């Protein structure tokens, strides 16, 4: 009944879409990433498997399917219900994270495929995009907490982009967050990054969490980077970030005390003549004077 009502609400929400012109990608409830990701290896045998979805996604009990190709077995994991004893799928609305625990422990050194469902969205007529990941298990359980050097660097910039939902030009601070090395006995492919804004104009005593995301796998170097975008009222002045990594069993690193900070400037601003540096040097002044004298001489020669 609850599911039927929620589905009806979604359909009505989509039907009552506003008259403002929007891009089709606006608010699409697509899958964002998977933990472990596609082609992961050494996945611990006690791993919980998860997938992050876009902010607008709503989980209405869609099935998650875990396939074990060597024996052709297929396990359908459904939404957890009260008093349900079987392993089931849990949905974290705050993190937009769908997570399942397989009924039986994963078999060592074996291959699996997990199929994540396409979810519906509050403000989208069509369902989003789901995903599937092939992965290989390792030989052991994940027993130790991950180790993470924390947020080790921070730079910023300001960008102007056209918002696909509002069709307005929006200004956003873009923070390039440098992440220190991370390790876990279950491998880094099972890690989720949890970032927090610990200082900022609207951060009071309570640091603000950002939605968790899979640990970046597409960068070869030990030091990884992620980008965080903040509106100008959230990102001006002294801004600091800190973070944790979480493994597939839910254990966290001890890295929340490692902060990186930067001081941003409120727009509008302009940095012209960047080749000349931040201050006019005496050499620049002398060159300008020489140029002026040259111009005056040339003019006086012409006039004579």
């Amino acid at each position, binding site marked *: 009944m609850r599911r039927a009502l929620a589905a009806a*609400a979604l359909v009505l*929400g989509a039907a009552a*879409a*506003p*008259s*403002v012109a929007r891009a089709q990608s606006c*608010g699409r409830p697509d899958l964002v990433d998977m933990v472990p990701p596609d082609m992961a290896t050494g996945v611990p045998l006690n791993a919980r498997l998860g997938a992050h979805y876009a*902010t*607008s996604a709503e989980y209405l009990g869609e099935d998650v399917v875990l396939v074990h190709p060597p024996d052709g077995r297929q396990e359908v994991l459904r939404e957890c219900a009260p008093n349900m004893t079987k392993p089931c799928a*849990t949905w974290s*609305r*705050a*993190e*937009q994270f769908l997570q399942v625990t397989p009924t039986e422990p994963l078999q060592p050194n074996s291959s699996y495929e997990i199929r994540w469902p396409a979810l519906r*969205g*509050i*403000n989208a007529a069509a369902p989003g995009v789901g995903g599937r990941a092939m992965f290989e298990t390792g030989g052991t359980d994940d027993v130790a907490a991950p180790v993470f050097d924390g947020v080790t660097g921070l730079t910023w910039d300001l960008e102007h982009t056209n*918002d696909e*939902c*509002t*069709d*307005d030009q*929006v200004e*956003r601070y873009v923070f390039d967050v440098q992440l220190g090395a991370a390790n876990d006995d279950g491998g880094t492919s099972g890690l989720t990054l*949890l970032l*927090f804004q*610990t200082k900022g104009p609207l951060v009071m*005593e*309570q*640091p*603000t*969490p950002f939605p968790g995301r899979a640990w970046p796998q597409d960068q070869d170097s030990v030091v990884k980077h992620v980008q965080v*975008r*903040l*509106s100008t009222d*959230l990102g001006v002045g002294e801004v*600091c970030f*800190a*973070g*944790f990594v979480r493994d597939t069993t839910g254990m*966290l690193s001890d890295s*929340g*005390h490692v902060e990186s900070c930067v001081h941003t400037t409120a727009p509008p*601003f*302009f940095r*012209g*003549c960047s080749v*000349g*540096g*931040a*201050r*006019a040097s005496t050499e*620049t*002044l002398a*060159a*300008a004077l020489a*140029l*002026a004298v040259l*111009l*005056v001489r040339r003019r006086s020669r012409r006039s004579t």
Partner: protein
Amino acid sequence: MRVLLIGAVIAAAAGCGRTALEPPYDPSTADGGRDRPTDLPAEKMDAPPDLPTEHPPDLAPDKITCVPKAEEECNGLDDDCDGIVDNHIAPIPCPNAGDVRLCVGGHFSDCPKRCGVCVPGSERTCITSFCTFWGSQVCSADGMGFSRCIESQPPPRCRAIANQMMRSPELEKCCIENDFCCVDEFDLDGDGDTKEMLGRCESVVCE
């Protein structure tokens, strides 16, 4: 004319490289310049003049010991002296099952939310100052804010109120009673917040 030309070239050179909105560079007021003591030897120039720069004479630097407290607290300090700040601190559960507040940067974090301000692509109703007195705002793709109020026709059930009462608390009341998500511009709930949303806002708010 010649003088003007020379002046312009020099002025451009002097200003080049500075932010247009920043004041001209003055070494005497640059970072740290104002508070720097002038009567100290060079090696102590960065230390405040009224504080000792060495350890107390009765405690050798290698003998400074950490005094452990009963247990680690979320305060940015190594209370239990194990060499790690703010470790082994249990998270605080949030009202939503499964969500927790973590110790980060010496404070417990806020409970996690699915978005910053609003659900991307969602819509709320706003009341305009003229013409139809009715409009809508769309949440941005990153959920960090709403668009400007874009005028539209009020729904039939609120059209008469819009025509008679124009921009008014009555129109906002009509908006709420007809299951729209409405900006509480007239503070109908009396909490002093005129930027919040009232009405049917489940698909708009982040909680």
